[in-house]
């Protein structure tokens, strides 16, 4: 592969509410067995990208922990590797990453010292599978300066949290509107870019000179008329998890057999850190319907239309409906949960009754009395 990878995983989003209180968005648990960044890393790894940098800042500890070994994604080779770059104090600067372009500028040495001709930049909160070789081939074929991976969202999607893209008939990007009040079209940017390495260095250096820090507004939007910026249209599933609602829906999407087939039953597989949990156990009295369960769970009660992450315990007579339970949640006996997201390591005591609304998912983040 003729590209290095850079994963932008430093951002926070207030609309994740309590869920991002103790972790980076890229470290959010996803689809039962994974974390959000696994999808970007697995796509890069499967596309044979060998050198990958992850730029972290907000709540980076959670992400560092998940990336404690690069072997799970098949990085960590003599040729290449997985590099974690949080902001650092240098002789010249003691700034945090002030934006996406600034985070690239602060790691310009990494980009400069690589020898691959291209750079793939992607965000850590996208849920997708993508063969970057195809995107790169498109990029070369189009003679593009920058390729932006885009997705035509299904009809009825609220696109106001995305960057909405307008193109001409040759897929050249004419306009990008960030988080539009009234959107014109459903083609959104996936936050995945391919660019020639030398051009990236040039643009980033110019940005830094002008005290500009944001990749989208200061590079993509600002240069759209002078550079050939093209939209690569992704056909398969894509979503990002920047709000509680989007997070809930994206997880629930995995109850759809087509989505599971795409991610779980077709190559390449999605890699993640391995935990060696025992199989999930269904005790007498358990009733489980239309649900996803990760490893190491013990079920005594009823689980319907829900996603249970690793090592959840459901007590006798409890009912879990339309809910998401993150890792290691303990549900006591006789609990009723509906339309909830229960944060990892929470304990819900016996007899509690917590109900959210389909359009207003309740986030339950209880302190864990077990620790």
């Amino acid at each position, binding site marked *: 592969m003729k590209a290095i990878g850079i994963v932008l995983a430093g951002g926070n989003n207030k609309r994740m509410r309590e869920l991002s209180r103790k972790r980076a968005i890229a470290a959010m648990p996803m*689809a*039962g*067995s994974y974390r959000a960044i696994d999808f970007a890393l697995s796509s890069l790894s499967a596309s044979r990208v060998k050198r990958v940098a992850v730029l972290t800042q907000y709540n980076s500890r959670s992400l560092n922990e998940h990336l404690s070994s690069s072997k799970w994604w098949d990085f960590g080779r003599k040729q290449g590797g997985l590099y974690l770059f949080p902001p650092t104090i240098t002789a010249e600067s003691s700034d945090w990453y002030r934006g996406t372009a600034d985070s690239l500028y602060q790691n310009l040495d990494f980009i400069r010292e690589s020898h691959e001709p291209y750079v793939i930049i992607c965000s850590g909160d996208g849920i997708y599978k993508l063969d970057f070789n195809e995107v790169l081939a498109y990029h070369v074929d189009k003679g593009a300066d920058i390729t932006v991976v885009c997705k035509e969202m299904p009809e009825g999607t609220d696109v106001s949290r995305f960057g909405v893209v307008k193109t001409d008939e040759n897929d050249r990007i004419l306009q990008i509107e960030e988080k539009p009040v009234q959107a014109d079209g459903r083609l959104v940017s996936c936050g995945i870019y391919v660019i020639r390495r030398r051009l990236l260095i040039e643009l980033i250096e110019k940005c830094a000179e002008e005290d500009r820090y944001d990749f989208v507004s200061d590079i993509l939007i600002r240069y759209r008329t002078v550079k050939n910026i093209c939209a690569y249209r992704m056909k398969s599933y894509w979503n990002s998890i920047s709000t509680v609602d989007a997070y809930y829906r994206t997880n629930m999407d995995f109850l759809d057999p087509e989505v599971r087939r795409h991610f779980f039953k077709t190559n390449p597989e999605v*890699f993640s850190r*391995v935990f060696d949990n025992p*199989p*999930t156990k269904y005790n007498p009295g358990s009733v489980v319907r239309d649900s996803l369960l990760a490893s190491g769970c013990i079920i005594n009660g009823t689980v319907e239309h829900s996603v249970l992450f690793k090592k959840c315990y459901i007590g006798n007579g409890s009912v879990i409906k339309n809910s998401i339970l993150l890792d290691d949640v303990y549900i006591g006996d006789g609990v009723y949960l509906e339309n909830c997201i229960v944060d990892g390591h929470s304990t819900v005591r016996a007899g509690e009754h917590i109900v959210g609304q389909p359009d207003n998912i309740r986030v339950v983040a209880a302190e864990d009395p077990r620790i």
Partner: protein
Amino acid sequence: MIKKEMIAMLLAGGQGSRLGVLTANMAKPAVAFGGKYRIIDFPLSNCINSGVDTVGVLTQYQPLRLNAHIGVGVSWDLDRNEGGVTVLPPYEKSQNTDWYTGTANAIFQNLAYMESYHPDYVLILSGDHIYKMDYELMLGYHKAKGADVTIATMAVPMEEAPRFGIVVTDEESRITEFQEKPAQPKSNLASMGIYIFSWKALKESLTALQDVPGCDFGKHIIPYCHEKGERIFSYEFSGYWKDVGTLSSYWEANMELVDLVPVFNLYEEFWKIYTHFSAKPPQYISAEAHVERSILAEGSEIYGQVIHSVIGPNVTIGKGAVVRDSIIMEECVIEDGAQLDRVILADGARIGAGSVVGTGDYAESTFDKKVYASDLTVIGEGSVIPAGVTVGRNVAIWGETEPADYPDGRLESGGHVIKGGSRA
């Protein structure tokens, strides 16, 4: 000089012929257990959890699956700069080349491997038992007793003692007598086939008995050490330990994991069992499915009924299918409407739609009465059973079978179809 206080030698070369078609093309230690594990995971995990980071695995019978499973040992943290796991198959020498003819002979042929680590102690393990054991405690005992050899033993019910190798000890736990499968046992302490040898005693006895045909620890080395007057002690182990040597004991041990509070608890955090496994997706239970009293591994998709069963990773159970009292290993597919009762289905097998497997009354096996002596029907790795057939109990099937193999669509109890193995 590389120096390891204790290294382990894991005997994994045996066929385990009493597991029938389950070991048709893999050694017994490679047979799946408890949904996601393989039998060898238990001794390997015990090693790393006990701080033993140098393990030689001796392979001989059908090693492909075992080699693929062990790899470089990453899954057990046994990929080390010094030590780690090393697979040791028999090899050609300038003279006296031979297969491994016995357990002790296999260890003797790898004297050079052991010597390269300059061990003070060598732990001898077999790859076919299900248990959790801290070998470090056993080593502490070995040192405290000033022993030359320590044998792990377990108290068994007196009436079962004639099936085991029995040791008789004095009040200090020093072994005074050995009885191999005695009709009149003098004690109920059975040897578990787990030994710690002080290096000198091991090397000396292996070298002295190198010309004994089929040299075996239980039959030759231990009696030799005993006669020589070496200090041999019994280390009594009281936890869960199961020899899964027969189809019915294998089935029982699996089913014990399903109990409400299993005697052998895999859910404890402090003694994890590791296995070769990449991150797998969660399991999916559909709206019309019914799962009760079962354990299921990652990635399985259940659309039918699963009752009191052990289901491995990436298994698909179709709509209207019923799986009861069965063990279904990795990557199996059970098509819509199929019914399985007391079946062991090995890796990657497929049951056609509407077929009924495990029905009717028990009948004596026409194939191998010694191996197939229960009402379990056993289907080997990668086998295919066509749609719409009926298969009785105590049946052995291996290979891609066709409707023609089932006259009138039936295979009666005690019958068999063996079509596999043509590749070998």
